[in-house]
């Protein structure tokens, strides 16, 4: 009886020592999966997903709170990459979350009062200007996130859609259309 107790305690002690040591040795800093998800997000920090930035959205995806189809700047390609990484099915954008046509912000320079509120709102520092000076948008840096539109007290910022013209047109990525096959034909084909 005593021998049995001794043997079991010995096993438990040895296992406890091994597990305690490996808990220190294999400690995981932060959340490595959230890092990988974060790397796939476009880092526009635009908040269109409903989270304060890309990193909080990545954390929410990993913890299962958020769906993978909430990031309009990432586009369908971004959803596909997230689906591949996480091993889940591809999900199209939900209603209201579809990517809008590419646009940049435009400041009406006649109305701008130089309050610098939009400068603080811009996540990518695409607005140039100083206090009491007229501001302007650096169009090549603007991601079209619309975060500067709300804070402007005089409503001088508007979103201008970039239409396709000869200068910025480029070949589309190849897309192969999938045809739906009626079920009668599939069941008759020999496997």
């Amino acid at each position, binding site marked *: 009886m005593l*021998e*049995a107790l001794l*043997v*079991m305690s*010995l*096993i*438990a002690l040895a*296992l406890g020592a*091994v*597990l305690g040591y*490996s*808990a220190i040795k*294999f*400690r*995981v800093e932060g*959340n*490595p*999966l959230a890092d*990988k998800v974060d790397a796939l997000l476009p880092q526009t920090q635009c908040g269109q997903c409903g989270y304060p930035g890309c990193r909080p959205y990545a954390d929410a995806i*990993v913890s299962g709170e958020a769906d993978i189809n909430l990031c309009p700047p990432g586009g369908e390609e971004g959803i596909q990459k997230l689906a591949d*990484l*996480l*091993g889940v099915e591809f999900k199209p954008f939900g209603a209201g979350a579809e990517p809008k046509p590419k646009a940049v912000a435009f400041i009406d320079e006649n109305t701008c009062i130089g309050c610098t509120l939009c400068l603080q709102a811009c996540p990518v520092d695409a607005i140039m200007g100083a206090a009491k000076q007229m501001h302007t948008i650096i169009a090549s840096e603007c991601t079209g996130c619309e975060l500067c539109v709300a804070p402007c007290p005089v409503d001088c910022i508007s979103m201008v859609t970039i239409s396709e013209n000869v200068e910025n047109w480029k070949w589309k990525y190849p897309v192969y259309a999938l045809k739906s096959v009626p*079920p009668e034909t*599939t*069941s008759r084909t020999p496997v």
Partner: protein
Amino acid sequence: MTEYLLILVATVFVNNIVMVKILGLCPFMGVSKKLEASIGMGMATTFVLTLASGASYLINEYLLGPELSYLTTLSFIVVIAGIVQFTEMVIQKTSPVLHQVLGIYLPLITTNCAVLGIPLLNVQANHNFMESIFFGMGGALGFTLVMVLFAGMRERMEGADVPGIFKGSAIAMITAGLMSLAFMGFSGLIK
């Protein structure tokens, strides 16, 4: 060397732990929906089972002996639980995506009856240390083989035109049964 090869062939094909001994069905049905997850599960189980059969041989031979043989099941469960915890830490460190995909099935390797069954069969068959390890590894490789085959078939069945009442688990059970029948063809391969 030949006898180890024979043990491997015998455990992988002739006495396959899932198809012939009908052990370890929980992960077999649970983690076989996606091919990658089933490969990951197979690898994790192989790691656990090989370590567990070696460790349990040592415990049975040097700690328990014939007079404490009533402790075999109890001590094996403790050792297996410890090794599974260790494996979980290693996987979380090395492959966070796999950790996410396997989810609850990773700690559930503890309750996989194949993992307890093989050390107990080792004791029953009086295997020595190397034989125990090869028996454990062979059993786990057989498990992995069947998991991968079954996951491949289930992925194909997603696109098949299955009658309504057979959809989902029902057709999976039938497939498992047919696979088990097919594995009966290996019996008599080794006398």
